[in-house]
């Protein structure tokens, strides 16, 4: 009897001893807002995917939390002449399966990007400028472009490199199942269930050093209230996009910390300028079409911008998680002009401008916008309507889900369009080019110019900037183009969203301007 007890005690003591010495698994769970549609890095160019796949795969050049370009799989790069770029690749990088990373993998990736079948939104725009690739040695590669292409490093930061050995015959389904999801990144593929979760395991052989987590579980929790509840119950240790209505609640609670940062997303208004006809949903006060298009008149556009009290929206609607905007990117970004300041709230001045433009009694219009895409989008639309009603424009509001809204806005079915735009490249030239350049899809100009604003002076400054290789000179030209457009109120910028992450006590997140949620930036708080 005594003997048995002794053995049992010994066993317990031994068990306690081993438990104390086996390091506990460092696991963390993160609540995400949007579903990940694929693990194939070249299938769907979508922010949530791009953010998730940065854990498994890496680009040649990475963007840091402030969207400055930093070396990743390439250690250095330079333009040899206007049409030639040389990239030096990182040595001693291993794929998750142990094979070495070489220039051949880059060649294979560039070949694969344009022919992924059924891609809903292709990455080919980023690789298209490259017309020829030459491998000098396993760790040196040279790219040729048809015309000077200054944005090549920025473009390549959006292309994740896959391995030739695993990717040669792999389909999107092979990536989703994890079979081909072999990258060089800090985390390995664990499990992927669309609309539910993604599980990642630490890559202990990562070239960039050890990660703080052994296992990371990303849970998709689209409903904001459910996401908040998950954090409150510690079901997850961090959530992205804390609803503004709950910010007061979290900031008062010592058990949680918030991390926030001005994002690269601007909330703005496109005004319908497709023709001289009366724009859709813009009429006289008794419902008849106007005899001309008021939005073609810069004075009307300026009045519509001056009528907005941006500080009130930022403070009251966004709970201070927004910064009033004067251009398409916040001041810290490349190509932004310090001369541009947010339009001052001046309803009397706006009325005067409207009268000058021939609308002393205003007109009637409907604001169209989304109700599920941007932070507080439907509330912003309502508040805008308040401001316009005050300067004598009878304003109605119609908001709808993004799925319905965007295609109609793209077809020019709305007059006053409330929209948002995130500049992934982090430099203002690309957003001016996409949103405000005279529309010419073949040249990639004005692709998202839903208002059809057109200004030859700005087009010229912008085209010049796009072929100027010197960084300083180019920035000056982009700033000039931005000033030309914004002083003409080409669109009405409202504010930059401030993205917010909420962490449980004991965790610290380094916030990013690109709204990405990366486990690499989540650390245990000291």
């Amino acid at each position, binding site marked *: 009897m005594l003997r048995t007890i002794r053995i049992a005690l010994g066993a317990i003591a031994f068990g306690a001893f081993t438990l104390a010495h086996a390091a506990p698994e460092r696991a963390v769970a993160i609540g995400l807002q949007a579903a990940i549609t694929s693990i194939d890095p070249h299938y769907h160019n979508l922010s949530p995917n791009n953010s998730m796949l940065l854990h498994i795969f890496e680009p040649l050049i990475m963007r840091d939390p402030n969207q400055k370009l930093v070396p990743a799989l390439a250690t250095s790069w330079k333009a040899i002449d206007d049409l030639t770029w040389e990239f030096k690749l990182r040595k001693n990088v291993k794929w998750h399966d142990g094979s070495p990373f070489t220039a051949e993998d880059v060649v294979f990736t560039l070949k694969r990007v344009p022919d992924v079948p059924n891609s809903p939104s292709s990455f080919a725009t980023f690789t298209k400028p490259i017309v020829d690739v030459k491998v000098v040695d396993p760790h040196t590669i040279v790219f040729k472009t048809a015309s000077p292409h200054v944005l090549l490093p920025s473009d390549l930061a959006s292309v994740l490199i896959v391995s030739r050995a695993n990717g040669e015959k792999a389909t999107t389904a092979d990536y989703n199942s994890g079979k081909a999801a072999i990258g060089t990144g800090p985390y390995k593929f664990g499990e992927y269930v669309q609309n539910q979760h993604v599980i990642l395991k630490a890559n202990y052989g990562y070239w960039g050093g050890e990660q703080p987590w052994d296992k990371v579980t990303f849970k998709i929790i689209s409903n*904001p209230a459910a996401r908040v509840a998950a954090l409150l119950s510690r079901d997850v240790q961090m959530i992205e996009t804390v609803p503004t*209505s*709950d910010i*007061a609640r979290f900031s008062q609670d010592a058990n949680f910390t918030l991390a926030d940062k001005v994002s690269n997303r601007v909330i703005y208004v496109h005004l319908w300028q497709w023709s001289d006809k009366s724009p859709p949903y813009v009429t006289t006060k008794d419902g008849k079409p106007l005899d001309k298009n008021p939005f073609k008149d810069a004075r009307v556009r300026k009045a519509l911008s001056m009528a907005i009290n941006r500080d009130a929206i930022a403070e009251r609607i966004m709970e201070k998680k927004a910064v009033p905007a004067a251009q398409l990117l916040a001041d810290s970004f490349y190509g932004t002009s310090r001369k541009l300041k947010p339009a001052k709230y001046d309803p009397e001045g706006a009325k005067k401008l409207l009268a000058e433009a021939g609308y002393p009694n205003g007109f009637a219009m409907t604001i169209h916008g989304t109700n599920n895409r941007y932070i507080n989008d*439907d509330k912003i639309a309502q508040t805008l309507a308040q401001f316009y*009603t005050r300067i004598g424009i009878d304003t*109605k509001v*119609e908001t709808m889900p993004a799925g319905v809204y965007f295609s109609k806005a793209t077809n020019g079915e709305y007059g006053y369009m409330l929209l948002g735009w995130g500049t992934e490249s982090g430099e203002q030239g690309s957003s001016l080019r996409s949103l405000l350049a005279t529309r010419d899809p073949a040249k990639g100009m004005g692709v998202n110019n839903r208002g059809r604003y057109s200004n030859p002076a700005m087009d010229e400054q912008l085209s010049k900037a796009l072929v100027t290789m010197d960084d300083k000179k180019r920035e000056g030209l982009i700033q000039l183009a931005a000033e030309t457009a914004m002083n003409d109120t080409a669109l009405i910028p409202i504010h930059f969203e401030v993205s917010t992450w909420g962490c449980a006590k004991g965790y610290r997140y380094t916030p990013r301007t690109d709204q990405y949620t990366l486990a690499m930036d989540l650390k245990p708080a000291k």
Partner: protein
Amino acid sequence: MSDIAPPAAAQPAPVESPWRRLVAEFAESRMALFGLGLLVVIVVTALAAPWVSPQNPYDLAQLDVMDSKLPPGAASATGGTYWLGTDDQGRDMLSGIFYGLRISLTVGVASTLFAVAIGLVFGLAAAYFGGWVDAVIMRIVDIQLSFPAILVALVLMATLGQGVGKIVVALVTVQWAYYARTIRSSALVERQKEYIEAAKVLALPQPRIVFRHLLPNCLPPLIVVATVQVAHAISLEATLSFLGLGLPITEPSLGLLISNGFQYLLSGKYWISFYPGVALLATIMAINLVADQMRDVLNPRLKR
């Protein structure tokens, strides 16, 4: 003893009109009277909303976002007082509730009236004609009733779009079947009775038999169901608005006001949801109290 008053029975019995009897029986329940009083106050407030509200909550020029989310009793920028606070757009909650009641009652009453009218025609037709007419109508009713009302309403609102008129259409669609079924069952019973036989023997025209003889005798159960369904229609409208499918966001009804405030509950701004919720509760409760007593009064089985 001669000074004893003559017994009541000896007096000529007052000619008791059925209406007066109904009123007397209704007044027997204090709860019902309370409910009726509350309902009258609510209806009068709703009707008088434009004159008693401090602000027109649907006129965007009168809202000020700088006054948003103020607690009850706070002073407004223009010198007034927000007795019940303001919502996220700076809308006075008290005015919002008065106008919201207006929408809720309009939608509730209008949709019930239309649904009763439609249900009545189909129910009577089914009962009177019987045979295949009955079978077809009642199978349609069965199918209609086998779907949850909220689901049908959601689908309809998603296709029709927003607006008071469209909400009424959706509510009529989901509610007419209840009335059709109610009126059919009572009409089936009445149809067997001698007075209908007599009318048939007299060779009266069919519409006259149906509408002058059959219909009036089927009404009591219908009135009871309709009163309960008004409350149901109001809560269904609030549910649809809460889900963002009812009315335009610039013209909130009670459901939309509650939904707007719902997001702020965890942040301690209770008043945005709480007071419209109380108003909705009071309205539905008042209607239900009245409806309960009506059922008791109109039910012959409960007659003493």
